[in-house]
């Protein structure tokens, strides 16, 4: 992304010549790129604009700007229910991220550093988890969580989210850990560093980029997960954003402006996170793994 952002000075002079060479094919391509951009951008823009309109204005004048910008739709959405869902999501997402980072990096450390028959089995066991998907385990999980008395609590989501994020996390972290030079740990051992010290003082500090990738991927998953959130949580006050939004829609019926405001609010944290950490998301994904 970086190298293209700053078009160098000599390139700016060229276009006059380029412009003449602009063939019909290029013109059509440009037109299609622009049309596609509008198709992507317009619904998002519409969501933001309409979130400040009244129901009548949305219904009778889809394209128009609001006659008065109803910013209070946002405070209404927030105070109605979104704040609760938001805090629930924040809690579930943060705990999941922290646990995935700690538990995943510990396992990846061992799986990268040791080589025995047992370690190989453990490696297949952990990474093989990628073959399983939440859909398939849904019904037994529901029963297991019920018998553990965890159903309808945030822990039902947190524990399952951690478990389903671990295989990918371990795969990514282990790959990165394998590239850490062995000499570093050898000199650390000579200096009297313990195993735990090697993990904490050498491996973790040296792996910040991939840990950030893990944070983005896990945050994205936990914030947006819908299936478990809908089925494992019944009580209104415990719902996270994705399932809460569905209730929000049903409760509001025609109060579309407020609904749209709630949708915008629900999107803000991930937009912020992705803007700050975008390059780590791309890095993690181009390692050849998984899509949100």
């Amino acid at each position, binding site marked *: *992304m970086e190298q*293209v*952002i700053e078009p160098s000075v000599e390139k700016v002079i060229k276009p006059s010549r380029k412009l003449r060479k602009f063939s019909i094919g290029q013109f059509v*391509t*440009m037109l299609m*790129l622009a049309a*596609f951009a509008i198709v*992507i*951008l317009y*619904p*998002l823009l519409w*969501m933001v604009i*309409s979130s400040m309109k009244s129901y009548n204005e949305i*219904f009778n004048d*889809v*394209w128009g700007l609001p006659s008065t910008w109803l910013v209070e739709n946002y405070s209404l959405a927030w105070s109605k229910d979104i704040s609760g869902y938001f805090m629930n999501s924040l809690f579930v997402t943060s705990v999941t991220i922290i646990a995935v980072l700690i*538990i995943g990096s510990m*396992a990846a450390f*061992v799986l990268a550093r*040791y080589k*025995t028959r047992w370690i190989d089995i453990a490696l297949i*066991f*952990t990474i*093989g*988890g990628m*073959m*399983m*998907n939440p*859909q*398939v*385990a*849904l*019904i*037994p999980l*529901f029963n*297991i969580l019920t018998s553990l008395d965890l159903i309808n609590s945030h822990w039902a989501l947190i524990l*399952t989210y951690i*478990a389903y994020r671990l*295989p990918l996390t*371990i795969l990514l972290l*282990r790959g990165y850990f*394998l590239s850490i030079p062995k000499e570093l740990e050898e000199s650390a051992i000579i200096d009297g560093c313990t195993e735990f010290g090697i*993990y904490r003082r050498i491996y973790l500090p040296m792996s910040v980029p991939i840990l950030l990738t893990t944070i983005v991927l896990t945050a994205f998953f936990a914030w947006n997960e*819908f*299936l478990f959130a809908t089925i494992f949580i019944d009580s209104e006050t415990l719902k996270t*954003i*994705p*399932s809460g*939004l*569905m209730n929000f829609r049903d409760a509001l019926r025609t109060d*579309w402006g407020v609904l*749209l405001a709630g*949708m915008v609010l*629900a999107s803000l944290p*991930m*937009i912020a996170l992705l803007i700050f950490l975008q390059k780590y998301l*791309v890095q993690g994904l*181009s390692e*050849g793994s998984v*899509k949100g």
Partner: protein
Amino acid sequence: MQRRKFNIIPVLFLLPSIALLLVFVYIPLIQNFYNSFFDFSVFSQTKTFVGFENFKALLADKVVSVALLNNVKYAIISVVLQVGLALVLAYILEDKLFHRVAPFLRVVYFMPVMISISVVALLFGFVYNPQMGLLNSFLELIGLENLKEVWLGNFEIAIYSVIAMSQWHSIGFVTLLFIVAIQKIPKELYEAADIDGAGKIRKFFSITVPQVKEAIFVNTLITITGSMLVFNEPYILTNGGPGFSSTVMSVHMYQTGFVKDNMGYASTLAIIIFILTAVLALIQIKLSRTGKDD
């Protein structure tokens, strides 16, 4: 390797992961296979053994064939657009001719990825709304009123409306992945092709495609897997309707289990989903491991 007599660290460090995976991933999977031979419901936990009855029911279940077909449609359209079109898009955006607009377009195309699928699905409820929806209003605006549709209420069209939304949501993301892959291609290859006087299309097929074939393969696998598992989009937009015309395997399983409370048969449906995706996942794991170590 091990100098100490017994090193406790590996055990301690692996234990949490193994325990969590065992309890929440592997045991449920095995349990699911076991459940598929029984007839039971959520609340009355008495299970009746029915042998292969649930599997026989699969063959008689008309919804399964509709759902499977919809999953396949999902996969085909997604592969064509999210792998095929996204690759072309990435190639165009990396072309020198477009280098001034590319950074902006890349950000625009990527935007939907940042929005959660439940928000996107609610938004497309407005796009497809038959009375005030953006799509119908737009068709009216450009004088194509006869193309107006009840996008989510028409038996023939509903599933395609759902699929279209998924494409809108994901295409920019895959494009970005391909851009990353294309940027890794050595520039000399293109320069050599320029000297040979190769055109843009020629260069696309004889340099870009072979050079990013691994990314193409991985993205195809991920896209097909995603299409077999898809749940949120049809569930939120249409709930599988009208009738069951836009249902997919996951939605059918959910409704069988948690709406009709027929957990045994729902477990059997889950096995089908598992089989459809496990093989693809296995190939993916193999690939990502050979790339890394050894």
